[in-house]
C-alpha cells in the first residue's frame, strides 16, 4: 500500500525567507503526486501536481516542487514567503488502484507553516 510522510509537523519561517517543505512517498509504481494547502477551517486548494514529464513542477502562488524518484521525494519550495502563506500544507499520492485511479488520495499528516514578521 502507498504511504506519504511529511516529517515536519511545524515549520517557522521569517517573511521573505525561502521555504522548503519535505514530502516522501512509498509506492511501487510511478506515483501521481500532489500538494494541497488548507487555510484554517477551510477546504483544500490544489497548489500543484506531478504525473509525468518535467520533474520540476510550477504551481500557483509562486510555489514549485521537484520530483526525485531516487529519493522518493516531492518537496515543495517557495523562494520568498508572504504572511498569507501561513497555512497547513498536505502532500498526497494518487495511484492506479482498483477504482482505475478514481479511488482517492493518500495524504501525509500535513505541515503547519508559521510565518514570522
Amino acid at each position, binding site marked *: 500500500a502507498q504511504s506519504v510522510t511529511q516529517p515536519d509537523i511545524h515549520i517557522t519561517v521569517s517573511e521573505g525567507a525561502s521555504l522548503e517543505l519535505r514530502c516522501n512517498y512509498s509506492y511501487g509504481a510511478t506515483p501521481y503526486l500532489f500538494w494541497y494547502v488548507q487555510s484554517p477551517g477551510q477546504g*483544500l486548494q490544489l497548489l500543484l501536481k506531478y504525473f509525468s514529464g518535467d520533474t520540476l513542477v510550477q504551481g500557483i502562488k509562486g510555489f514549485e516542487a521537484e520530483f526525485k524518484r531516487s529519493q522518493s521525494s516531492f518537496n515543495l519550495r517557495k523562494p520568498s514567503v508572504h504572511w498569507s502563506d501561513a497555512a497547513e500544507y*498536505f502532500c498526497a499520492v*494518487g*495511484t492506479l488502484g482498483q477504482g482505475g*485511479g*478514481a479511488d482517492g488520495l493518500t495524504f501525509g499528516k500535513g505541515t503547519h507553516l508559521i510565518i514570522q514578521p
Partner: protein
Amino acid sequence: SQTIHQWPATLVQPVGSPLSLECTVEGTSNPNLYWYRQAAGRGLQLLFYSVGIGQISSEVPQNLSASRPQDRQFILSSKKLLLSDSGFYLCAWSVGRRGSDTQYFGPGTRLTVL
C-alpha cells in the same frame, strides 16, 4: 464552472444521535465523489468513494456509511455517533479514472460529538 457544496458547515451532536452530512456538486456530470475525515494531528483519511450512482467503496470499516442517491449528491450518515467521530469532514470530486486527476475539495463540515 464547477462548484461543490457541503452542509451544514458546523454541527454539534450528542453521542448516540444520528448523522447526515450532504455534499453536492454543480457544473459537471458523472463525477467521482469522495468523503474524507480530518482528525486533529492525523491528516486526511479517505472514508468512502463513489464512481457512480449507487456505487460506494469503503476504505475504513467504521461507524459511518455513505450513499449516492443522485449523480451529483453524496451523503455521509451514521445511525449512532461516537465520540471518535468528531472531526472535519471534507467532500471532494474529480472526473476521469486516472490517478493523476485532480480532486477538488468542498469547504468542509466541522462535527463535534459530545
